[in-house]
């Protein structure tokens, strides 16, 4: 007889896909079962019991029936654990939040529980929701922390950071920064200011990183360094659908 468990767990909605006239397939990052796809019957109906709980980025408590023989589990209940106040009212915040869930979806394999990644995503989304002044820095912060949780933490050494003069290198292989006369094999050159900011983001706590102030030019360089580092390690998996769309949104969102 096929085994059937009832699973009750916290989750963040990564994405949804309309399926049939009334249902949706929703990809969740759950605390206890990792990334999992569930079928939410009736979710497209106006009076669906799931309400707004299946929107991407939603932080929820879900109940589903788990059958190991199925690739799609049946969602039974979903309710908010916490709701966001400003996240869905701001184009920049929406796009940053969507990039986070998209990257999480792309880099995590199915049904491989990683509670630390779940905690990270929840914490950063809530920080993004509450952030008033500098939400942008949360994106490279999230990228580097996710990389760390997946086993490729940037190897930052204080003495090397201190040794950088005007310009230095980011090693794409180990994510560390190096002085100009110690060039690693695959490296990006950048200014001392940008490399120091990168090193801070790579090690800072969430509560500290939000107090960082970077000039737009420095922020752009740091973002390029982080993108290059992630591409170096996860190349094929890095989604670029969001990136192209966000490039179109950027001009308006920046204003």
């Amino acid at each position: 007889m096929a085994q059937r468990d009832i699973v009750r767990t916290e989750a963040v909605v990564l994405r949804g896909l309309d399926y049939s006239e009334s249902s949706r397939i929703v990809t969740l990052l759950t605390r206890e079962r990792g990334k999992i796809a569930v079928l939410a019957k009736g979710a497209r109906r106006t009076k669906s019991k799931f309400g707004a709980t299946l929107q991407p980025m939603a932080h929820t408590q879900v109940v589903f029936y788990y059958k190991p023989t199925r690739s799609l589990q049946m969602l039974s209940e979903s309710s908010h654990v916490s709701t966001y106040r400003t996240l869905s009212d701001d184009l920049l915040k929406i796009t940053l939040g969507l990039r986070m869930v998209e990257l999480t979806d792309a880099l995590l394999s199915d049904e491989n529980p990683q509670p630390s990644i779940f905690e990270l995503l929840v914490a950063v989304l809530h920080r993004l929701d509450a952030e008033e002044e500098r939400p942008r820095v949360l994106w490279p912060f999230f990228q580097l922390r996710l990389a760390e949780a997946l086993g490729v933490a940037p190897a930052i050494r204080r003495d090397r950071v201190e040794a950088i003069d005007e310009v230095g290198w980011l090693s794409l292989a180990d994510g560390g920064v190096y002085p100009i006369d110690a060039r690693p094999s695959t490296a990006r050159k950048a200014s001392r200011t940008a490399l120091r900011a990168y090193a801070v983001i790579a090690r800072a706590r969430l509560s500290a990183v939000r107090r960082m102030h970077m000039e737009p030019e420095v922020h752009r360089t740091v973002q390029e360094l982080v993108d290059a580092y992630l591409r170096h390690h996860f190349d094929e998996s890095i989604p670029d659908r969001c990136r192209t769309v966000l490039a179109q949104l950027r001009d308006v969102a920046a204003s």
Partner: protein
Amino acid sequence: MQFTSESVETLVEELAKLPTIGRKTAQRLTNHVLKMPRAEVEALASALVDVKDQVMQCSTCFVVTDQDPCPICSSHRRSRATICVVEESSDLLAIERTGDYNGLYHVLGGVISPLDGVGPDDLRIRELAQRIDPSFPDGPSGDGAPDAPSSDAAPDADASDTDAPEGDDAPEPVPVEEVILAVNPNVEGDTTAYYIAQLLEPFDVALTRIARGLPIGGDLEYADEATLARALEGRGAV
């Protein structure tokens, strides 16, 4: 299961390409077609072909229509100062069925969905801005902020004009005063609404969004917090 007849198999395959139709449903539909009288099958087949041959998009509002401009855009009875923005032609029909709206429409052809790779350049958003200010630039965005709206974008129209009987002459253009965003209440709808709001900010036009909240017949007790918060936010005088 494969069918032994090649033409049956072809029909199943073609039907299964349609959205929300899986192979099993396609097989059921195919079995049904096999039992239908020949005249009905011919009517279905020609309806499918006609829809491609005869249906076009209105060059103003982009609704699916048989004539350009569409009956709504060419009507003298509709208020031309209001544009209701919808995702698809089917949403336009849903609003028309209420009988409560007398303005014009603009069909975006979808919503901004970064997770699906759909951006503003894939939709009729620039065309919307051009209906509000004809000097709004063509071509992909990224070449900076839109030009400031010209004060005399369109001549003022006589108010009695909207009540005039329909004729062959096109209705006089009227400056747009209100844009109503009737996009779905979800993340993609939010993204689209905020994008359009920022894009239209330089223009002298009121921007509203249809209320989001509880469905009629719904129950407060069972509403989720996000929906309830929206309903409170969008509360109105009794």
